[in-house]
């Protein structure tokens, strides 16, 4: 299905060497009555040292499942995950620990991911002891970690319990905990969406700083495509378990090709463009937004045929109902999975051989 995908180069590749790779990864969940949900379908992407790849999509699109697959917290249904070029085989607890020392995960909710009965010190000491090996100066490392996430004075914070910290401070502790293992890959699942808007930027810039300092390969999962524009090198747009569009962050947000990406971009609040917004002025025009009002279809359908977006897509035809389009390269670093790119994004498709799949151009 995705023969063309490997011809795409990641926009993040220029930043550093390849760290992690997902090759045609799929995950099915059995939901009873003999039915399965394909949460992740044939997804391929790569993470590079010192680069941020953003996985963008709405709730239920499978973006967290994809990250959990990379983190080794779910078994793959099919496909392969490679770390530093070697396929990952986790068969024993030791394997898993070695894997986790390379690949760390930051959870969305800092209120739930820290144990309320333990101090910050305990949260950080454990991974340092586990992954640091014998002879590590645990105390010094813990202090260094907490300073890295800019919680100062460090000693004072180490003695605190999670309930004594603000949301932002808790999330910093989560970052420090993830860094304790000295990973090469950091999977951040909506790391700022639970935080106040006024500190989100600070946290993202902290993450950016950590990425540079430790040349981390980072997967940034979010539903906020605007933050991906600022933070990520490459954006992968996920819908119903599939990557429907990928490419450099700036290009994707400024000139979305896939109808779903277009919907996503059109839905983001846009104070800079009040005149044309859906809510003010052009209020009556809201029916024109592609796919609006059909959000009920966003969950992965149990029976799958055709393009997953076709029930909401304004450009859908018979073919979209029958055949699922593969990720079609638009440029060397950019691709979209749509049969009708020539209609959906004519200015982009004109550069394609054959004018973006169908006949004329």
């Amino acid at each position, binding site marked *: 299905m995705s023969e063309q995908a490997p011809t795409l180069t990641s926009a993040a590749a220029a930043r550093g060497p390849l760290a992690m790779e997902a090759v045609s990864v799929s995950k099915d969940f059995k939901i009873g009555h003999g039915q399965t949900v394909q949460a992740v379908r044939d997804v391929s992407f790569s993470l590079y040292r010192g680069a941020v790849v953003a996985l963008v999509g*709405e*709730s239920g699109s499978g973006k967290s499942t994809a990250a959990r697959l990379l983190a080794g917290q779910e078994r793959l249904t099919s496909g392969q995950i490679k770390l530093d070029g070697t396929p990952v085989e986790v068969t024993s607890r030791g394997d898993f620990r070695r894997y986790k020392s390379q690949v760390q995960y930051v959870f969305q909710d800092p209120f739930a991911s820290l144990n309320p009965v333990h101090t910050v010190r305990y949260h950080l000491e454990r991974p340092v002891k586990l992954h640091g090996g014998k002879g590590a100066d645990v105390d010094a490392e813990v202090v260094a970690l907490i300073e890295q996430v800019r919680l100062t004075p460090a000693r004072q914070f180490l003695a605190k319990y999670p309930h004594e910290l*603000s*949301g*932002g401070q808790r999330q910093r502790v989560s970052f420090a905990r993830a860094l304790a293992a000295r990973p090469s890959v950091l999977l951040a699942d909506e790391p700022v969406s639970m935080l*106040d*808007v*006024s*500190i*989100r*930027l*600070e946290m993202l*810039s902290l993450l*950016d*700083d950590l990425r540079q300092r430790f040349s981390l390969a980072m997967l940034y999962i979010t*539903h*906020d*495509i*605007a*933050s991906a*524009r*600022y*933070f990520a090198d490459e954006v992968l747009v996920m819908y119903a378990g599939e990557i429907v569009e990928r490419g450099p962050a*700036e290009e994707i*947000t*400024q000139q979305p090709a896939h109808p779903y990406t277009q*919907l*996503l*971009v*059109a*839905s*983001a*609040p*846009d*104070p*800079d*463009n*009040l005149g044309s*917004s*859906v*809510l*003010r002025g052009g*209020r009556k025009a*809201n029916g024109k*937004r592609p*796919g*609006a*009002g059909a*959000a*009920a279809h*966003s*969950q992965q359908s149990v029976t799958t045929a055709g393009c997953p977006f076709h029930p909401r897509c304004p450009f859908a035809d018979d073919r979209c109902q029958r055949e699922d389009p593969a990720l079609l390269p638009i440029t060397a670093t950019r691709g979209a999975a749509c049969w009708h790119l020539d209609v959906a994004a004519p200015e982009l498709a004109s550069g394609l051989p054959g004018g973006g799949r169908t006949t004329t151009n």
Partner: protein
Amino acid sequence: MSAHPDQAPLPVEPSSPAAGQDPVLQIRDLSVVYRTPGGDVRAVDRVNLDLAAGEVIGLAGESGSGKSTLVYGACRLLRAPALITSGSVVYTGRRVTKPADVLRLSPDELQHLRWREIAIVFQSAMNALNPVLNVRDQLLDVIHAHLRMPRDQARERAASLLDLVGIPRARLRSYPHELSGGMRQRVMIAMALATEPEVVIMDEPTTALDVVVQRDILAQIVELKEQLGFSILFITHDLSLLLELADRIAVMYAGQLLEIATAEEIHHEASHPYTKGLLNSFPSLRGPRRELAGIPGSPPDLHSPPPGCPFLPRCRYGTAACERVDMQLLPVATSKDPGHVTACPFVLPGTPVPPEAEPQPEATGEPEATGEPGT
């Protein structure tokens, strides 16, 4: 920090095009404290706010800024240790004969006012709906509690409420867990509208939803508002949303209002450094990439609020004079909007400057002027 209500010019003149009549809800000098063993926490400090008929007011602020406490206090929905220490909340609806002070109503009168006149869409639809009742029973509950109507008619009304928010009638028999997050939120909105209230308070109704669904619901809210003519007090921490949705925006910080103006004014002519900071906290999707700053630091501890301006510890323009400033909303003289008021007397030229303070020259630019290297 002395008493001020007499001299503080308030935005009595509704500044939005949607408004024009007397305010439906007039919050005056409202203060709410939380009584704790360590002393009172001033969650809401002498707040004045007007909501005109048919108007959408956005109340923006960080968590802990007191925005929810303000509106729950105004509806008397708070319980101990929260205590309303001063103020009045005058409601003047089309259906009531004379203005009533919500804070001084008897329990019976209050019961009649709530939901019938002022309804609330609560923050988390997940928790606000009863998991063991289906949608129809929950709607009927509201209808029977607040409206007198025969059973058949109530059922018909429940069904038509779902039509109103765009949910198929077949969903009447669904339980909350069978609905998606967006649908649950729509049910919450339908419940709030069941009694055709004059004022609908929405407490972060879309925070848990993703952008596509959020936009659908907001568009629907705006449509319903125009159709039914209620006023909305919309609470959120997402200022970018309010810029699109609200007629006027009130920015709240540490229990006080720092700035009130039309959405347009807030967007282009924000005068308070905190508002500017909030505006600069959003990555914009369109237009050129600009450097984003956010607001370093965290809100003050309201147990012992700092003297003067509560935003001073985080303010880029702060001076020693700010510690002595008397927090009150004064009109921004340079503004086209007569209702534009700000609590910061120093930032914009033309605003009244107390004798001991000097204006900050670098702060006189357009909102973009606050941009500074973000990392």
